[in-house]
């Protein structure tokens, strides 16, 4: 279990907001690039960047998981069913991220090709692990991404609800604010 703490480590906060920018951007670019005209100047560039930023996101996710391990994180706000739902939603978002990254990797590497990252290095490919890998992974990549984005919207909505309706520190603690509220309402869970 993570350490009991009332605040997020600054590294975790930085990673959270960086990912909050990158995830919707990757989603939007992913949808847009698959519909590009063959003669669009982005036809080759956009998928290259999508993959590069995807690998970067995987590294950030790894750092974030390490940061949680090292510094802990505050328990999800709220109480009862909603609090439990928040815990589940957070776990799902992490799980979906991993699954989306994995499925994306499996599309591009089904023929043993590696994935070049910003032209700096290449993530090696290990070929086909199962038949029709590129197609199955492709469908999974799309549907899992839509699921994640739906959760992200829920997540953002919940954060705003905590801030404006419950008027608690859920949102401000992710902005790095350590005000009095941050330490006062002890969470009943854990």
């Amino acid at each position, binding site marked *: 279990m993570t350490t009991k703490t009332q605040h997020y480590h600054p590294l975790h906060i930085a990673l959270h907001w960086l990912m909050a920018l990158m995830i919707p951007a990757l989603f939007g670019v992913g949808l847009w690039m698959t519909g590009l005209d063959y003669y669009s100047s982005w036809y080759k560039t956009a998928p290259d960047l999508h993959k590069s930023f995807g690998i970067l996101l995987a590294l950030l996710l790894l750092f974030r998981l390490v940061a949680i391990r090292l510094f802990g994180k505050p328990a999800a706000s709220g109480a009862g069913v909603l609090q439990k739902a928040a815990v589940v939603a957070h776990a799902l978002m992490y799980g979906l991220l991993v699954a989306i990254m994995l499925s994306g990797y499996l599309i591009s590497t*089904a*023929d043993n090709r590696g994935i070049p990252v910003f032209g700096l290095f290449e993530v090696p490919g290990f070929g086909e692990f199962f038949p029709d890998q590129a197609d199955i992974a492709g469908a999974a990549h799309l549907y899992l991404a839509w699921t994640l984005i739906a959760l992200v919207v829920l997540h953002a909505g919940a954060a705003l609800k905590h801030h404006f309706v419950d008027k608690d520190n859920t949102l401000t603690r992710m902005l790095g604010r350590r005000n009095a509220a941050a330490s006062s309402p002890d969470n009943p869970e854990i």
Partner: protein
Amino acid sequence: MKKLLLAAAFAASFTSVANAADYVIDTQGAHAFIQFKVSHLGYSWLHGRFNTFSGDFSYDSANLAAAKIKLDIDTKSVDSNHAERDKHLRSGDFLNVDKHPKASFVSTKVVPGADGKFDLVGNFTLNGVTKEVTIAATKTGEGKDPWGGYRAGFHGTTSIKLSDFAIKNILGPASETVYLDLVVEGVRK
């Protein structure tokens, strides 16, 4: 008179079929290839192939005109040596393999030409559209193989237009025509 001719033609085709040997295309040993090439931007060629197909033919060197061939192609097996491109080729943009998993060629007639060359005319079905195509073919050779069988090999080329098979050409005008290269080796049944 017409009836008589028909009867004669029928009898002739019957006897020729009876004399012709039946061959199964050696996909088991992968001695047959369905390959294609299409222009890339007008600057170069992209080569690909279909890995999974099956078929048989009947052929008699004494009566080439009576030869017949039938070929079934698993469109999902398209292979251009690039997983992402193959995924795109299988999609609705090109081969639409979920809806049309099979392509086929069924010969309707053979027009013998000079030097062992012949025109193989038949119905080619791709993307759910059937169109007549003519394959310019030649016999490569035939004879006993070293393992107790008897083989005959043919080579054929033809070209199709994407628009003829309801495939919207998104690759540019140079890529409208797809050239097919068929290598067929049969083992006598």
